[in-house]
């Protein structure tokens, strides 16, 4: 199947494909720069493969060129990566955003971090750099020293304006009530209804991808674990899987099962937290208190099982660092109680008219918008996108376990809440299956002498598809591209709030469960 597909693409674009390499389930096609948009358009619109990331690499030391990679997720657990070369002397490439809206932020990110200009981009403003960042400083270029402190300059950021009689702007943030991270929301309203929302983020950019390049692989696991605090396992597992793929190491089955259990525990406590947040925002404190209580119960279970409430310090390249086999009974018992409690809570929550009134039809994201922006995770599945990395690109012990992927069509806050609730039951069932089939054996295998190479690592985090592309050269990290689910999902909020009233914004925001930290690395 996969070979046929590649042949079809090559036939379609004959002279434009220069080179083809295959490693594991990743097919890399180096194509003519001028043909990239046409080929990506063909993969996306004709073959219906979603574009899941675009990133650049600086390979000037090797062949004087930058490379841009377009990753497509295909059927039969395959990825097609379209590669183009961009010469240093002509640092430009044609934009894909007109054809595939999901390309928007990636291209602007490449513009800021590598100084490669997406020609014809509909919104060529800076994305990550602020107006006080001087021109000509591109942090992910290899000749940019990590200790550089560029001078601050004067500049201005122009927001989109909505003008007319009775139209007002409401600026919210970057400093918010409560201890959350910074982000700016600029609403244009006429009375209560929202006419337009523009979000602006990247207030606390930490240079994580650059930092990866200065760390040894075993230490980098801990960095990955801290990119998005409540998705620690998903991030570290994705990173480890990428490294293991490069090394050609298959981790012991026992470790695969432990990773699966941890990933699902993470999903459960995140979903409880999100449901608690939604209940808070619709002024249903009874539900919030109970959902938070359940979340706390899972976090205490996490602590007993792994020594960390956030399940940290478990993943490592080659497996996991602690066995949890002796905790089998404890986990099963806790899960059974949790399941009953959660069912009771959801029955009360759903049957409450005051909750239903606030969440039904609120913050709708149509299937078309969700598909166009490549909205992932529960938010995408609530808008009818039937995608789940655990099933589509199986990893860890998922191929051996049975589970359903809940999908709903309404795309509103209600659908997102119910998708999460359904996923909690699936997660509990997955853990129970994994515990009952937990294989004997080692928890870790050595990952030494990693050959040069690159690979994708991916997991389905509680927020959705999380992607790592790791390039290892001489035992060190040459490039590590991280794509958190929130990088895809943030833009959806600009659409979700349209025609809703301002007081519903917090609920819509909460129901999308967006990470500032994972987005702004």
């Amino acid at each position, binding site marked *: 199947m996969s070979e046929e597909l590649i042949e079809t693409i090559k036939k379609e674009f004959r002279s434009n494909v220069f080179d083809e390499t295959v490693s594991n389930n990743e097919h890399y096609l180096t194509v003519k720069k001028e043909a990239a948009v046409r080929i990506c358009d063909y993969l996306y619109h004709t073959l219906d493969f979603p574009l899941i990331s675009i990133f650049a690499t600086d390979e000037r030391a090797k062949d004087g060129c930058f490379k841009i990679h377009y990753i497509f997720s295909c059927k039969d657990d395959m990825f097609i990566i379209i590669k183009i070369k961009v010469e240093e002397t002509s640092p430009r490439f044609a934009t894909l955003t007109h054809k595939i809206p999901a390309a928007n932020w990636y291209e602007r990110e490449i513009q800021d971090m590598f100084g490669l200009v997406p020609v014809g981009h509909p919104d060529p403003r800076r994305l990550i750099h602020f107006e006080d960042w001087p021109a000509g400083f591109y942090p992910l270029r290899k000749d940019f020293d990590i200790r550089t402190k560029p001078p601050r300059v004067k500049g201005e950021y122009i927001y989109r304006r909505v003008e007319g009689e009775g139209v007002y702007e409401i600026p919210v943030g970057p400093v918010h009530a409560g201890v959350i991270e910074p982000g700016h929301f600029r609403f244009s309203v006429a009375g209560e209804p929202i006419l337009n929302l523009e979000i602006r983020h990247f207030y606390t950019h930490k240079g994580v991808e650059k930092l990866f390049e200065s760390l040894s692989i075993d230490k980098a696991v801990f960095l990955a674990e801290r990119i998005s605090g409540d998705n620690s396992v998903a991030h570290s597992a994705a990173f480890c899987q990428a490294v293991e793929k490069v090394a050609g190491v298959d981790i012991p089955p026992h470790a695969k099962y432990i990773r699966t259990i941890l990933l699902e525990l993470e999903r459960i406590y995140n979903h409880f937290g999100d449901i608690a947040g939604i209940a808070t925002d619709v002024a249903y404190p009874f539900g919030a208190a109970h959902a938070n*209580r359940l979340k706390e119960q899972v976090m205490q279970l996490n*602590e*007993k099982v*792994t*020594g960390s409430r956030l399940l940290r*310090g478990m993943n490592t390249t080659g497996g996991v*660092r602690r066995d949890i086999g002796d905790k089998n009974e404890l986990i099963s018992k806790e899960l059974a109680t949790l399941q009953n409690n959660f069912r009771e809570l959801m029955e*009360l929550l759903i049957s409450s008219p005051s909750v239903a009134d606030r969440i039904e039809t609120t913050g709708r994201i149509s299937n078309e918008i969700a598909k166009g922006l490549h909205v992932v995770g529960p938010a995408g599945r609530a808008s009818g996108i039937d995608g789940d990395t655990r099933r589509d690109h199986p990893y860890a012990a998922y191929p051996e376990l049975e589970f359903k992927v809940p999908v709903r069509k309404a795309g509103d806050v209600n659908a997102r809440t119910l998708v999460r609730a359904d996923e909690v039951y699936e997660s509990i069932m997955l853990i129970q299956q994994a515990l009952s089939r937990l294989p004997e054996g080692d928890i870790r295998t050595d990952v030494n002498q990693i050959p040069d190479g690159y690979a994708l690592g991916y997991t389905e985090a509680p927020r959705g598809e999380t992607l790592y592309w790791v390039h290892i050269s001489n035992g060190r990290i040459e490039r590590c591209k991280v794509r958190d689910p929130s990088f895809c999902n943030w833009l959806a909020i600009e659409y979700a709030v349209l025609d809703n009233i301002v007081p519903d914004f917090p609920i819509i925001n909460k129901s999308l469960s967006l990470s500032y930290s994972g987005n702004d690395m």
Partner: protein
Amino acid sequence: MFEILIKTLKTGTVTTKYPQKPDIAPLGFRGKPELLPEKCNFCGECVKACPPGVIWLDEEKGEKRFTLSCCGCIFCGMCEEVCPCGAIRLTREYELGSKTKDDLLTIIRRRV
């Protein structure tokens, strides 16, 4: 309304009397690293392994000093994992709040 009341009564009180009543972390908890000076041989393996770099060795006035700072420690336990002498281990202590960074240092000294 009636169901809410039943649920509330059924759940009862779940909060604890902490801090009046101490809350002891479970076995295996990843808490404050503890040094056992008599076992440490100053080999520096933990210094190399520490991801945030909060363990260091230096010398002053004819004294070898080994310093561990909990200020920046991520409680990953790599130091414990690599130590060949079992001189460092994570404890169940988690109440680490302090007013100065110096309070967060553990130092062991040895005459050269």
